[in-house]
Each structure stands twice: as structure tokens, then as C-alpha cells.
């Protein structure tokens, strides 16, 4: 990106602190993902949505936790909104996803949810 990203409305320090807690494990897991897509069929939403690649477990964690670590927590509200749609609407955290390499996908999604929740970005039904 050529222009400076506006992180107004996001406490990037808080986000970074949450990310730092599990940095070693998450970065190692992100690295270990070979992008093989063999996890796809283990997701019932992927199977139910006509095998749409956007529902693959690997797609979901790479585009949520992966983005958070890539940007070192410096995300804007738009990024968080996209991550929210990904980790709540395309994943129900049923923890049935299977990674042949052994990447702990549910924990990654849970971490992304935690980051979003810390910034007040979550779906309506979680507000009560």
C-alpha cells in the first residue's frame, strides 16, 4: 500500500499485545501451512456452500490471523470488519477442521475473534 493506513478507532497496541501472547506458535503454524488445501473437505460449511474456496479452513485463518500478523497488528476498522465476517459468518468454531500437518486451526480463528472482540468488532448477537 502506498498511502498510510488509517488505524483510527483501533487500539493497535492492544491488538499487538494480544498477538504477541501467542506469536511463536502462531507464526510457526502460519509458516507450517503448506497451502495444500487438503483441509477443505473437513469443513462442513465448505461442503455446504458448493465448495466455495472462501470457506476453506486455511483460507479463513490465512486471511484473518495471517493478515493480523502480517500487518503486525496495525489494522484499520475495514480490515477488522472483513476479519469479523470471516471468523464469525464463515466459521462456527465447530473445531472439526482437520489439517494434515497438524496446524491448530480453531485456536487461530479463536484468536482472531478475540482481537476483533477487544476492538468492539463483533456480530450483533454477541452484544448481549
Amino acid at each position, binding site marked *: 500500500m502506498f498511502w498510510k493506513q488509517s488505524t483510527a478507532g483501533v487500539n493497535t497496541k492492544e491488538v499487538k499485545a494480544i498477538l504477541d501472547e501467542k506469536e511463536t506458535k502462531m507464526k510457526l503454524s502460519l*509458516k507450517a501451512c503448506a*497451502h495444500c488445501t*487438503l483441509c477443505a473437505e473437513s469443513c462442513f460449511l465448505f461442503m455446504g456452500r458448493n465448495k466455495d*474456496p472462501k470457506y*476453506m479452513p486455511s483460507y479463513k485463518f490465512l486471511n484473518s490471523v495471517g493478515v493480523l500478523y502480517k500487518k503486525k497488528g496495525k489494522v484499520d476498522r475495514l480490515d477488522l470488519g472483513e476479519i469479523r465476517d470471516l471468523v464469525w459468518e464463515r466459521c462456527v468454531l465447530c473445531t472439526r477442521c482437520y489439517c494434515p*500437518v*497438524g496446524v491448530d486451526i480453531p485456536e487461530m480463528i479463536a484468536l482472531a475473534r478475540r482481537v476483533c472482540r477487544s476492538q468492539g468488532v463483533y456480530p450483533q448477537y454477541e452484544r448481549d
Partner: protein
Amino acid sequence: MDSSNTFFWTFAYDFIRGPMAWIAFIVFFAGTLFQIFRLLSLTKEQSISKLTPGPGRFIPKRADNKDKKDWVMWLKLSIAGVNPFMTIVSTIFHVLLIVMPIFVLGHNILLDNSFGISIVSLSESVSDFLTIIVILCACIFLYRRLFLDRVKAITTWSDYFFLFLAAAPFVTGFLAYHQVFDNYRLIISLHILSGEFMLMAVPFTKFVHMIYIVIIRFTVVSEYSLGRGNRTW
């Protein structure tokens, strides 16, 4: 080729055959050990507590052994059942990638010349055939990356790079063995160099899944763990 060029080539050739190979092996083994200890330090042992039945009624075991694990269903639902072709290709690729270089005749002759040790080696025609298999498997991976929507969705440039890096020693080894190009020394240099880079890349790049899969799948307890995992993150 003028004399300075020749000198450079001789020096480079000697360097990648000698010190560079040592560096590659040291980086590979030290890095692997480091990652193993790091993974083990990230996980901790946990005792598996078994619940004992409490008071009250509980379901008695069926007499007809029906509650045994249904292996056919288990296999059907596994990756091997859902994606048999990819499982076969991937298994062949990874097994040959690791095992084959150890048994290549040329490598054993080098070992014998240097240290006076050697192990059983494959005949040259067999290793030639197996090399073609590895390259074919790599081509299948490349095809998936290029044309399958689901793989395309998460592919980055580094996936191509590491696929080429993994296949490079086999392609150059094949070319060198058949002496396809006149400049044998250049091809064999590239062969050695790509092998060394691949080894050094294992602990620190995407190739880390080689270490990760062994440690995590065997030690961390989960529904899918192999063996008797008793650790947790």
C-alpha cells in the same frame, strides 16, 4: 573463457562442493534441533484423565461388537478417502524427496570417496525412474497451484518458489545424469547448490512443515493425533 573466469569457476565449484556443503548440513541439523526443542517448549505434557463411571444407569456394551470402531467409515472420512489421488501423489512425493537422495549411487560413491562409508544404493535406472516420478508429482502440484480454484485462492509467490526449490535438485540431477547440456560442471554445480539451499531452508521457511508434522502429529493430543500424544499447546 579467460583465466580469471576459470579461476572464479574453480573457486566457486570447490566452495560449493566443500565448505558450503558442511555449512548446509550444519544449518540443517542445528536448525532442525532448534525447531524441535522450540516446538516441545511450546507444548507441555498433560496427563490424560480418564473418567470413571459414576452412580446411575449407563449404557451396557453391545454384545454383537457393533460399537467397535468402524474402520471402513473412518477411512472414507479421512483425507485418504476424500482425496485419494492427492494423498497418493503427496505421499509418493514426500517419501521419495526424503528417502531417495540417500540411496542414489552417485551420492554413495561420494560418501565412499570422502569417508570410506557407503550404504546400499539403488541401481541407476531405478533412481532415474524415481526422479521422473518426483518431477511428475511436482508438476501435479504446480498444475493444482495454477489451475485449481481452491488452491489458487491461497497461493502466494512463495508457494511457487518453494515448489521450484524442492524440485530443483531433482530436475538438475536428472539433467546432469543425462548430460543434457554440454556444461556438465554448471549443471552439477546448480544441483549441489539447490540441494544445499533446500537443506538450509528446511528449519526456517515453509519447509518447516517437515519438522512440524512429525512433532505435532505425534506428541500433541488431539482427535487426529498419531501415536500416543500426551502433550498440549
